[in-house]
């Protein structure tokens, strides 16, 4: 009974269980395939190293899971990351102390999320269109401010956020694990989480039951913006560069991970456990393909294939359950 929607019905929860088993199976198959392709792949060092690359996608996927459960979408997360990067980099370049610049960047991410949320709730516009608009706007702002320039003159301590290790464990992995636990608790145990599922299944009935639909949605988009802010800081620190093309195409990885994890774009369904598995599969695939020397253009192609397979799987499971 950990997740709200598909709980309860005996056979249903078994199907959900098997769905996550399927994902786990897929993950194992990919790991085996990759280790055959590249001898370096299946080493603890590489696996932990991989985690440095998926934490950014992972953090944003947590917020995206909640958005997709409410039958929404946020296409602007990649552009938002660019916006945050440019705010951090260029305010620092302009003389703002770096700690303050970081705070400004996270606030910018949050503000971008609030902006999305306000358009979706107050004006009652479809999130697909709103965030397609802000997808272009945020990226445009980032390019405009940075003038297509990059900032990489950060002091050495900044690398801490994206490059620190605690023993063999990368620092951001710890951040991710904490974030997963927090969002999982919120979604599965709290009133807020219950409202999220209620809105996703039937927004009108939720409103008629006194669920503060607008406030919940606003909080979800804002929260996702905040997670983008956090992920961006880790990203800038990891690559030691802030520039306007940060997070290019990021929304594809994020949405693919969430949908692969079983969230339904029709709303109502999705779990944090599923999303985490989705993130792991995509990250492993990307890392493995990289090690195997597959060019990034073909990685993009394969990711597209994966997204379609994920959507098909969801349809398949939906019919099984229905």
């Amino acid at each position, binding site marked *: *009974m950990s997740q*709200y*929607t598909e*709980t*309860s*019905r005996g056979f249903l929860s078994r199907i959900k269980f098997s769905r996550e088993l399927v994902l786990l199976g897929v993950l194992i198959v990919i790991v085996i395939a990759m280790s055959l392709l590249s001898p370096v792949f299946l080493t603890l060092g590489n696996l932990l190293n991989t985690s440095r690359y998926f934490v950014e996608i992972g953090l944003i996927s947590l917020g995206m899971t909640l958005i997709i459960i409410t039958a929404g979408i946020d296409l602007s997360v990649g552009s938002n990351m660019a916006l945050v990067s440019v705010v951090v980099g260029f305010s620092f370049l302009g003389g703002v102390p770096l700690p303050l610049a970081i705070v400004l960047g996270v606030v910018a991410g949050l503000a971008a999320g609030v902006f999305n949320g306000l358009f979706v709730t107050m004006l009652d516009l479809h999130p697909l269109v709103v965030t397609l608009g802000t997808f272009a706007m945020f990226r445009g702002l980032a390019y405009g401010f940075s003038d297509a320039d990059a900032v990489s003159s950060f002091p050495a301590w900044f690398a801490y956020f994206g490059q620190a290790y605690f023993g063999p464990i990368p620092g951001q992995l710890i951040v991710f694990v904490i974030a997963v636990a927090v969002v999982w*608790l919120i979604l599965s*145990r*709290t*009133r*807020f989480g*219950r*409202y999220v*599922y*209620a809105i996703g*299944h*039937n927004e*009108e*009935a*939720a*409103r*008629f*039951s*006194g*669920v*503060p639909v607008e406030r919940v949605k606003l909080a979800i988009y804002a929260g996702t913006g905040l997670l983008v802010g956090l992920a961006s800081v880790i990203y800038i620190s990891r690559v030691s560069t802030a520039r306007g093309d940060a997070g290019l195409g990021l929304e594809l990885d994020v949405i693919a991970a969430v949908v692969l994890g079983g969230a339904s774009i029709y709303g*109502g369904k999705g779990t944090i456990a599923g999303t985490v598995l989705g993130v792991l599969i995509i990250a492993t695939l990307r890392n493995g393909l990289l090690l195997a020397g597959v060019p990034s253009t073909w990685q993009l192609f394969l990711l597209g294939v994966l997204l379609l397979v994920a959507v098909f799987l969801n349809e398949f499971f939906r019919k099984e359950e229905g």
Partner: protein
Amino acid sequence: MASADNGMNGDGSTSVERVGIFALSGATKRFGGVVAVDGVDFDLLEGEVHALVGENGAGKSTLMKMVGGVHAPDEGSVEVGGEAVSFASPGEAEGAGIAMIPQELDLFPELTIAENLFVGRKRPRTRWGGMDWKTMKEEARRSLGSMGVSLDVGATVKQLSTANRQIVAIARALLGDAKAVIMDEPTASLTEREAEKLFEVIADLTASGVGVVYISHRLEEVFRISDRITVMRDGRHIKTAPTSDLDSDELVRLMVGRELKELFSRSRHETGDIALETRGLTREGEFEDVDLTVRRGEVVGLAGLIGAGRTELAQTLFGLHKADAGEIRIDGEAVKSLSPQKAMEKGIFYVPEERKSQGLISPFPISANITLSILDRICRMGFVKRGRERETAERFAASLSIRGAGMDDPVSRLSGGNQQKVVLAKSLAREPSVLLLDEPTRGVDVGAKSEIYRLIDDLAGEGKAVLLISSELEEILSMSDRIVVMREGKVSGEFERSEADQEKIMAAATGTKAGQTAEVREERT
């Protein structure tokens, strides 16, 4: 071969010479482990109205869906015109002359009447290969005309009243040369006057030899228009008999499987202070200048035709819409900018008329539906206390005797009547002082109905103020202490229980003087 001698107690003496249209024999349908229909025989003859009655979940709709091509029977056979058939789709059934008109009409609101009639059909073409709108409109007009109705076939369906939509759905069936028309709760959302119009259409249909299967909870209608009645209970065939051989009490007993003493229950209560009051409440285009008071311990019936603005008024009182002018007072205190959350805090709760789309989160368990509006009370630091949740849900489920599934089963597993009780349980869990009930017994079987009436009476006894919106006059008259009638957004009449009768209410609802309503009916048709 279809025969009138059907079931345990068949009597076909009045219809021996009639020809059978279709017959189901030994039809069985299972869903998972549940047997929805268990070896039922049913047949329909030319030119008859065969009523199919039973409580929610008795298997009536499922039985008819086996004739209509929606479900294939797991056992038993379907015969049409004496030949065994198995339809793969509703389209095939329609091709064989069997048309189903579902409770929720499958019309396209944005398309015109003529377009709706030709959806999914071979449409006439002009010489140039374009659509032959002229012929289509003519055929549409003829089809409606054959039912004695004239509507503008170029009007979009969304502009039509519910009754006229119903008629368009029937016209669509007739255009396909239907020999049998299956109607599932056709009058559920019609007012009495609109229902009259439908009955005349049905009479015309049967006169021309079409057979009608009439599924309804409204027994007086069943007695009025049917030739034979088949009763189902728990998926089984209980009895088929000519209507003249049955009376209302026996029919209810057959449906419920036990004696039902009194449908309505209403005891006198002392009324207290004014709990809810509106002054000049107005919402542009929906209602205007409404003055309304409901006292503690009082049931105020809100009568009127569909579209009179009653639902909009109630939803505004619950904060779902904003009023443009006027005042809402709760316990004498004026409230501004109401939202559902604020209305709930003030002790108001609205039970919506659309159970599926507004009342329930269907995939959620029963317990989560009951507690959805009181999560703030059973949470600590935002975390749901599962023990409290379960205990609360069980208490309210028990007090409303919700039956048919466990607390953790999705609410969609329950029959309509029990789903409605879940919606009521959700509102009662909030312990409101003012309850706005919008058609609380629509589509609910007799047993659940009488339980809901008893509940309303109890609530008034506890000193709650109840506003009861209903399109069933008998319900309004039996349950209300006072009756307010609305017409075209305005209050058009107010009656004490003692002075109210059907005539007066219909007169106020339609804007005619009492005594003229019957004539108006004539003119309209």
